[in-house]
């Protein structure tokens, strides 16, 4: 970037290394909450890499938003503070910082093929503990659950075997041990 002297803005700080963090955000399940959370990201130039939302406590009308974002430690800290400041947000937990969380994602992977590639796809699916949830004489849909990198790896392997389409849920995360959020 140019650093012209003809500006009244301070220069960019020397770069810290960007990190990827998984955040769990407990919010009121009311209209517009998701828009507020996402608007905060787009408005301030933060990235969302994965986003999962669902109501988790029906009676209390609470939803859990799990999102994965990348930024310098300063930016991550700022994101958490900004999220926490939103009125309908109850709690923000940095699962990456806590370091004791389990993360899972579900993907459905559609393969088209015949003969040997079809058999090979089935064999690999078995190795990855993926289940067949739909089958025709020339296609399969696999369901696979696991960490994101495992899913990535599975998709990579399916690519030459006739991969047609992938649908992923995004990450859901929870802390280990007896404590709640």
């Amino acid at each position: 970037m140019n650093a012209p002297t003809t500006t009244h803005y301070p220069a960019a700080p020397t770069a810290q290394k960007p990190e990827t963090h998984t955040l769990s955000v407990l919010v009121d399940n009311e209209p517009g909450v998701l828009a507020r959370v996402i608007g905060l990201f787009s408005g301030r130039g933060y990235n969302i890499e994965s986003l999962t939302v669902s109501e988790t406590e029906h009676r209390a009308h609470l939803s859990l938003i799990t999102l994965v974002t990348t930024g310098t430690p300063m930016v991550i800290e700022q994101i958490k503070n900004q999220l926490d400041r939103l009125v309908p947000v109850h709690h923000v937990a940095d699962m990456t910082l806590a370091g004791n969380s389990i993360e899972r994602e579900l993907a459905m992977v559609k393969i088209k093929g015949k003969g040997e590639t079809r058999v090979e796809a089935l064999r690999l699916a078995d190795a990855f503990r993926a289940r067949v949830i739909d089958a025709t004489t020339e296609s399969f849909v696999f369901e696979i659950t696991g960490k994101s990198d495992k899913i990535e790896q599975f998709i990579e392997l399916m690519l030459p075997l006739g991969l047609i389409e992938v649908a992923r849920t995004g990450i859901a995360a929870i802390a280990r041990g007896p404590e709640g959020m």
Partner: protein
Amino acid sequence: MTREMTGAEMVIEALADQGVKHLFGYPGGAVLPIYDAIFAQDKVRHVLVRHEQGAVHAAEGYARSTGKVGCVLVTSGPGATNAVTGLTDALCDSIPIVCITGQVPTHLIGNDAFQECDTVGITRPCTKYNYLVKRIEDLPRALHEAFHIAASGRPGPVVVDIPKDIQFATGVYSKPKDFAHTGYKPKVKGDIEKIKQAVELMAHAKRPLFYTGGGVVNSGRAASELLRELVKLTGFPITSTLMGLGAYPGTDKQWLGMLGMHGTLEANMAMHDCDVMVCIGARFDDRITGRIDAFSPGSKKIHVDIDPSSINKNIHVDVPIVGDCAHVLEDMVRLWRTEARHADKKAMGEWWKQIDKWRARKSLAYRGSNEVIKPQYAIQRLYELTKDRDTYITTEVGQHQMWAAQFYGFTEPNRWMTSGGLGTMGYGLPASVGVQMAHPKSLVIDIAGEASVLMTMQEISTAVQYRLPVKIFILNNQYMGMVRQWQELLHGGRYSESYSEALPDFVKLAEAYHAHGIRCQKPGDLDHAIKEMIDVDKPVLFDCVVDPKENCFPMIPSGRAHNEMILGDAGVSVEEAITEEGKVMV
């Protein structure tokens, strides 16, 4: 042309490539590099406004009177937030605008920097589309796409937010040949089967009616020509919304006048009683429909609109046609001719006889006066004295706007600039500045109210600076007239805060701005004063002192149907005419 340049230079290059001649704007810290680029060239002329809202309204006036895209340049933070009213106005009235906003450098975005605001966040709901350009490589494409999106399909405002470091950065500029958004493909040509169905319905109609809107004007000159041809071919009566005035000549005998809340009796009764309604480029707005469940109960409805989301939004229609008005009208005209269609002569004769009965009620009639200027009379005289000239009319919002729509006979499209959807007081003066910039030799008049015009009065300074001889014709009734009218009808005549207290002396105000001021208080002096206004080669503030108690009739009270209008002389107590639910609807 492909060459290396700064982001700021790309902005000007792209505007010039798009054929932009005028740019309405206001400088500030986050757009200084662009102003530097403006300084170094003479392809695009910058017009310095006095407030960013004025910049957008001026660009709207420019766009509506020329059919081109209007361009705006404002700084970050307050520059962008001040533009929001104008952008929303352009969105509501489907006006093509490209608004370039400066932004703090990319590394400060989200840091609450000086004059920072979340421009794309704030303008998302009030633009057709918006961009935050964070890489210099993306800038040329974003700029050119902005013009494409603003002007195509249903037009609207597009914001391009450019951080200051991107304006300084250098990159390669070229005009992209293709369009990146594959999902954005407005449908221009209407489904021919649907159009055939429509023509079939029209040919068998007993009591048909054309109901047209701003879409016809937006579609371009050809659409108005084709509409005129189709109306003549069929012999059907035609009415239009506020936005569509001028697409069909208001002086023609098939013209019923404007419809809706302050439309004519004949237009609204024809809407209620018709058996085939041909809606072209209008959107069944609540000012038009009145009570939804009593809206034109016996008609088959044909709806031509380029925006699929406008169809079946408020009113269920029988034949929806998604397409551009000019294209669909062309098909309709061709089918009507080639299939040798003709309207049912006998039925049409009876229909026109009925319409003439409604016309005989003279719903726009008002009580004249020799003592005090009636606002309706002022518009009538203004019309008579300017109709043979090359005239453009803008308005503010309120009673004067409705009287202008009722009493000024518009005969051409793109001659009538008014804030219809959003109803923005303060629109007319800056809009007239934009219109005059585009048509320096024409007569440009802002029909104003004394309350509205004070909201953006500062733009008279812009008019003076650029020697734009706009005429601000103020119907001064010393009230926010429409507010007062509603308070009279709905709130027991308790005129809470609607009196224009402590008004300035508009003649002296004009002089203070180095403009020309005229005051007229007697009906007998009006013609002479209007002639003076026209002849002065300067911006004019015309203080036309009118009857402060005059109300705008006819009127469909809220919550009522088209056949439940109140007429000015009908003697109906207006309180009786409005139901409790109606009061809530406003």
